[in-house]
């Protein structure tokens, strides 16, 4: 339905979006995730034909947005970051205007009523947009995007400024729409993306940093599984801590053990990382049974989307796993931490990697610039 090939956008000599490619199938809900200024809005503006791309192409249902813009745009409903509302019009007049603008052929009254019902703005239809609250404005923007039932919906941060109830409503609305439309939505709110989207693309510094479902991304970014254990030793002392940690280290498949704080008196928590292939829980249980220790707690802590996001966007990785993988992982789905990390490391250590460092600064500059433009 939507195909993006090697999309690049330069603002002057600043790179805002760098060589992004992805595909969205019909009926899919794709989430765009990224920190502020990562290039989300720029990408969406290119997808909708508001701005042109420097290189690469966007195909909407097989039509190039720059070659046959009218045909391609007729397939898109777009809710920009700031809804494009004429604030001195009433909601009805505005929606009617958009209906005309989009050359909609559906029966006017019934269609506008449907759209208003869907976005829950029936009760403000006669009011002037200027007097509406942010949440209502957002929903009018949403309604505007839905006019003419476009097969593709592109929503840039649709839940910004809404209260928690409205956020839930909009989410369920988007889910509902996802059955009939292809939806791309951007957000920097992680639970939202996780709740709504079938697939996630994480964008960082203008590049696709990860692409896949949350689970796939988690699997790809790290193989390790983490768990937290609380084990009661016989003596309730620091000596216990050392002995227990050593014993767990001895189990095959365990990569890393760290004794954590004293959570209960004389009882410590242990963070255990495994290689991801072996399930060490039974071995640990057996070990404790043999030694007469008591397991008081065992908690698996797989990566949440939040961890992934931080890991990718913070660049320097929260633990060693990130930096180990950073150099080479260009496999699919791509997890690419190279640019940022390479830049940072080389900046500290030596000068021979100068080019990469420059690239990095260029990218981050442009993303700042881009962010400024968005506001």
């Amino acid at each position: 339905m939507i195909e993006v090939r090697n999309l690049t956008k330069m603002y002057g000599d600043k790179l805002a979006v760098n060589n992004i490619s992805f595909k969205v199938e019909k009926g899919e809900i794709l989430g765009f995730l990224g920190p502020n200024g990562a290039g989300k809005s720029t990408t969406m503006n290119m997808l909708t034909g508001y701005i042109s791309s420097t290189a690469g192409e966007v195909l909407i249902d097989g039509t190039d947005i720059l070659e046959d813009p009218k045909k391609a745009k007729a397939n898109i409903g777009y809710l920009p970051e700031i809804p494009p509302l004429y604030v001195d019009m009433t909601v009805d007049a505005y929606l009617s205007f958009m209906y005309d603008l989009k050359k909609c052929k559906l029966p006017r009254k019934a269609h506008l009523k449907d759209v208003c019902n869907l976005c829950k703005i029936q009760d403000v239809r006669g009011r002037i947009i200027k007097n509406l609250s942010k949440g209502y404005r957002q929903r009018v923007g949403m309604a505007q995007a839905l006019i003419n039932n476009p097969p593709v919906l592109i929503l840039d941060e649709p839940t910004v400024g809404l209260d928690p109830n409205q956020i839930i409503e909009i989410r369920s609305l988007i889910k509902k729409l996802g059955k009939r439309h292809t939806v791309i939505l951007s957000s920097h709110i992680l639970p939202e993306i996780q709740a709504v989207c079938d697939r996630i693309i994480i964008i960082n510094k203008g590049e696709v940093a990860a692409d896949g479902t949350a689970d796939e991304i988690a699997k790809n970014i790290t193989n390790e599984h983490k768990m937290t254990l609380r084990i009661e030793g016989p003596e309730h002392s620091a000596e216990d801590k050392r002995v227990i940690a050593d014993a767990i280290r001895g189990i095959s498949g365990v990569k890393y053990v760290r004794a954590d704080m004293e959570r209960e008196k004389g009882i410590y928590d242990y963070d255990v990382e495994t290689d991801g292939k072996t399930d060490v829980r039974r071995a640990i249980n057996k070990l404790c049974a043999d030694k007469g220790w008591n397991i008081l707690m065992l908690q698996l802590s797989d990566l949440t989307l939040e961890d992934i996001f931080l890991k990718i966007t913070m660049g320097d990785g929260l633990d060693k796993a990130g930096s180990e993988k950073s150099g080479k992982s260009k496999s699919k789905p791509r997890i690419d931490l190279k640019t940022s990390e390479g830049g940072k490391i080389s900046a500290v250590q030596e000068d021979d990697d100068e080019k990469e460092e420059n690239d990095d600064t260029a990218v981050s500059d442009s993303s700042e610039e881009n962010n400024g433009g968005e506001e």
Partner: protein
Amino acid sequence: MLAIYRREMGAFFTSGVAYVFLAVFWLVSGIFFYNGVVASGTTDTSSMFSSMFYIVLFLIPVLTMKLLSEEKKNRTDQGLLTAPVGLWEIVLGKYFAALTLYIIAESVVFIYAFILNYLGDVVWTPLLGNYVAMIFLGAAFIAVGLFISSLTENQMASAVVSLVVLFVIYLSEMLVSSFENGGKLKKAIHFVVSKLAFYSRYVEFTRGVFSLPSIVFFISAAFLFNFFTVKVLEKRRWS
């Protein structure tokens, strides 16, 4: 195009621009009508029409100042540019909305004509000729104003710059009037500027000459500036 035209007409009236424009236009043209025609005891409207040039000059920037600048400022241009409409449709929709309001304002001369009808015999031919000439003069000026509105996000800047540009267009022929008897270069400059002059072309009509080339000139100017406006919108997309 029709959707944009209708919205823009509505916006003129809800924002109050239309009322200000019409009130000032009618007030000042009424003064010209009284002084130039009624008080002088003549039914010759040409002096009124030649004074009308200044109303057009000063009021058109008010009409065009927010047409495109406000769209950009409020980000509503995102709605327009991502809708399945062409840039020409957007520009022309706005252009014709402004032109319509202008023609409504200008048509007040027919009321004056009826007043004159009671006082004496109206000479219809020059009146109609001047009326048409004024429409085309406005058509050209509106295109200039719309073009300047597309360059900025600030209404006031748009209005002031439009006013200055229209004023320079008006003054240009007077600035070079001394060049007529100068050297070759000066003569060439004088030739070019006087060919591009708006004011003397317009005044020609008030002297009773219906000059088709001048009409063509005004239409070409209108087309050219609308074309520039389209190019500005296009360029913004590509930058």
